[in-house]
């Protein structure tokens, strides 16, 4: 069975500092991985994806994520956090060739001014 873990319920970072939101996965075969963000009273908004190719993936709003096969990780990063980045972040993943994927439990990011 496939699974995605986000080991931190909450991440706090000061505005202007780099941020990292962690994600690890357990997927048979080659994985595909996504990051989503959810603002209050909104649905999930797609940020970026990894399917194949470069391990460093760049996405929307200055976010990027690094795929690390040996550590089975796909951490979300941003060099300089904004207060407006405060939201709930979900990592999701599945097996290549599939159409369904599983979501991690979510990490609440708070960027403090």
């Amino acid at each position, binding site marked *: 069975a496939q699974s995605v873990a986000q080991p931190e319920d909450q991440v706090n970072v000061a505005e202007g500092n780099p941020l990292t939101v962690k994600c690890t996965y357990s997927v048979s075969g080659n994985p*595909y991985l996504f990051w989503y963000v959810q603002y209050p*009273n*909104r649905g999930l*908004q*797609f940020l970026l994806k990894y399917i194949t190719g470069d391990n460093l993936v760049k996405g929307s709003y200055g976010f990027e994520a690094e795929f690390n096969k040996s550590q089975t990780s796909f951490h979300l990063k941003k060099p300089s956090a904004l207060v407006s980045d405060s939201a709930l972040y*979900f990592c999701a993943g599945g097996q290549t060739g*599939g159409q369904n994927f599983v979501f991690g439990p979510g990490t609440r990011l708070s960027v403090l001014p």
Partner: protein
Amino acid sequence: SAVISQKPSRDICQRGTSLTIQCQVDSQVTMMFWYRQQPGQSLTLIATANQGSEATYESGFVIDKFPISRPNLTFSTLTVSNMSPEDSSIYLCSVLVQGPNQPQHFGDGTRLSIL
């Protein structure tokens, strides 16, 4: 990506009643899904809405409780039947615009409270 409209955005319902949630997409999509999310929690897949055939339900979800329709490639409905307070949740529609391994895109959800 696709523009997904979900209605209603929120509702407060009485115990024992049923509510139908609509999901409209601005373009034809390959697949549509329905999720449930407790506020601040992760998403749980309820079912895949299949065009022209019965939906495919995940473990723990049954058609009698969550009947789903998908009459065409741009529209689906989810009904929450015989509601109880435990059904209070956020219900989200998502679509797969492209093929496998591609991200799903989500509507803004329906916030449902059962009294």
